[in-house]
């Protein structure tokens, strides 16, 4: 039996990565194939509908799939995740000298966020702001940079545009993931020393390999075993692991998604049964 996995084609490198991994699996006797999606919503629906056996899911796609599965009385498994999917943080950043040094000073101001469906550059930091009494549309204006809608923030463009808007003085603060703050500072999009981090979310988890109801348990067990056995020592795998942004696969865990569940509920992005409710979301 084949394990058919869904992956979202947010970049051409996705083909290189999964072609390479497919070779690795088939050489070790696991019949593996993959299917590319243009966005995460259909992938989540197909996973729960049993049309694919596994899905390489964004955190938001995990939440949608879990909600759809719960409504259908199905159990999903977060099989593995990358070492880089654990304990990420999103930041709220201002310009040095703007006089804004803490979150409460954003009252009445404008912040830039990434795409509507970006957990790290929109949903999670906006939830953090809410917790600090800053309610979009009431005492906070949110300027959204919708790049790659449907890709759940995998496309870096929205975050970069938000950072540029901050430096251009078009907004008072910008939201981005910690690694991108470092990246933009190195690139000079945010010149070194020009910004201050005034807010930081608690650590949260990112993607996971979700197993759906149609997968054969024995094959899943082999799939997990082979993923966890991928070694950065292996010169054939190393370039693929570099492209996918990990050094090793870790066992999956679902403890790091609670903040995103809350954020999704706060704005009614998805209903509790996994229906898409956000009216301005068109993947």
């Amino acid at each position: 039996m084949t394990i058919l996995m869904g992956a979202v084609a947010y970049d051409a490198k996705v083909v290189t990565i999964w072609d390479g991994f497919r070779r690795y699996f088939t050489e070790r006797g696991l019949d593996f194939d993959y299917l590319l999606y243009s966005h995460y919503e259909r992938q989540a629906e197909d996973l729960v509908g049993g049309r694919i056996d596994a899905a390489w899911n964004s955190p938001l796609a995990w939440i949608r799939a879990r909600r759809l599965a719960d409504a259908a009385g199905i159990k999903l498994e977060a099989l593995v995740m990358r070492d880089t999917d654990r304990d990420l943080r999103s930041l709220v950043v201002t310009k040095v000298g703007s006089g804004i040094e803490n979150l409460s000073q954003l009252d009445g101001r404008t912040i830039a966020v990434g795409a509507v469906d970006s957990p790290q550059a929109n949903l999670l930091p906006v939830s953090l702001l809410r917790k600090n009494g800053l309610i979009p549309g009431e005492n906070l204006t949110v300027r959204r940079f919708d790049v790659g809608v449907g890709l759940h923030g995998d496309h870096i463009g929205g975050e970069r545009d938000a950072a540029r808007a901050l430096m251009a003085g078009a907004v008072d603060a910008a939201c981005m993931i910690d690694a991108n703050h470092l990246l933009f500072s190195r690139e000079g999009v945010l010149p070194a020393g020009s910004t201050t981090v005034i807010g930081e979310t608690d650590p949260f988890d990112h993607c996971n390999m979700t197993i759906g109801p149609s997968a054969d348990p024995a094959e899943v067990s082999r799939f997990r075993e082979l993923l966890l056995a991928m070694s950065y020592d292996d010169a054939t795998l190393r370039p693929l692991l570099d492209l996918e942004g990990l050094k090793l696969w870790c066992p999956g865990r679902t403890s790091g998604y609670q903040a995103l569940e809350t954020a999704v509920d706060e704005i009614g992005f998805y209903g509790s049964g996994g229906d898409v409710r956000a009216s301005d979301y068109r993947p």
Partner: protein
Amino acid sequence: MSAPATIDLEDLGLESGGHLLVQRGLRDLPVGGRLSVRGQDPALRTHLGAWCRSQGHGIDLTGVTPVVVKGSASSARWHRAERAGRPDVNGVVPRADVRWGLAPRGALVEEGGPPLNVDLIDQDVVWADAARQLYVNGAARQWNPDTAIAWDAEFELPEEIETAVVQVMTYLIENEYAALQIPAKFIGRLHPHYREVMQVLSVQVADEARHVEVFTRRALLRSSELGVSGAGGRASLQTLLDEPDFSLAAFLLSVLGEGSFLDLLSFIARHAPDPVTREVASLAQRDERRHVAFGMAHLKYAVEADRSMLGRMRMAAERRHDALASTAGLNQDVFDSLIVLAAHSWSPAAITDGWSAVQQLQYDMDQGRQRRLAQLGFPADEATELSALHTRNFM
């Protein structure tokens, strides 16, 4: 747990190079070793967390000072790395590994990456101990075609003498094309581990490009047209281009061909009817000496490594002779032009002198070839016989 090693980044941030100090601090720690990172950059904790995640290191943020826990990935990349020989000439290995790719000799090569698509990977097949010295000499003795020759030197030549010079230049250009393309072709097949050989061949290509330049410029100095190109001469050169074996190509081109050309260029320089022709021929001859020296040095090395090389060289010369048996060899126009060039005039006495000079040239070429063949280890009778088989096209 022992106290972690500590570094202080002061006010240096990770976005401005702070990662270098962290990496340096981690370098000598074992996997799992802890490095405490102090610093005043306000974003230090945040950036250190993101950086550690991307590098496969752990981070402990429970204390006041963040502590990096060394992961295995940073060293994993080099676990199976190997040195591509040693950088000096004694570090050349008998067989270069195509998996080293374009890594310089002596570099520590990470496993993986595309193998180099080359087939000249054996030292015996390409090496010459003199390669380094020949490269150094060649690089130091490059000359500028524009200034090395007095292009505006005054001279008058009768029209038909000038025509003979143009014909000889046309012939030389054609031959230099072959002498350029052959090393160029082998450079693309050569493992760069044999760096000195690659460098010698590259200078050879540059030399020939310069010869093409000055011969063309001399041909067109007083004339708007070039001379003729005979089918037999081109057939002779084609057999050189078609030789796929590095050593045999060096034998046919550098030892026999360019070796004969040394005498030809010397002849042209000596009998040139004008100063420009004399200069272009002498400068080219100076370079060609190096090419012949490399061919000789390589073949001596190859023969020493394997005596059967002599037999293969003999067969290559015979094969080439057979292939050219049904062709005219040297274009009659070239041969006649050499006589006229040396005669300087059309008087019967001058033509007699020119004729004798060309007879002497052929004798000198034959003697030179025999001498070089003997130096390579051929017995005298075999050297005589093989020299006689050499193409009538000289090259």
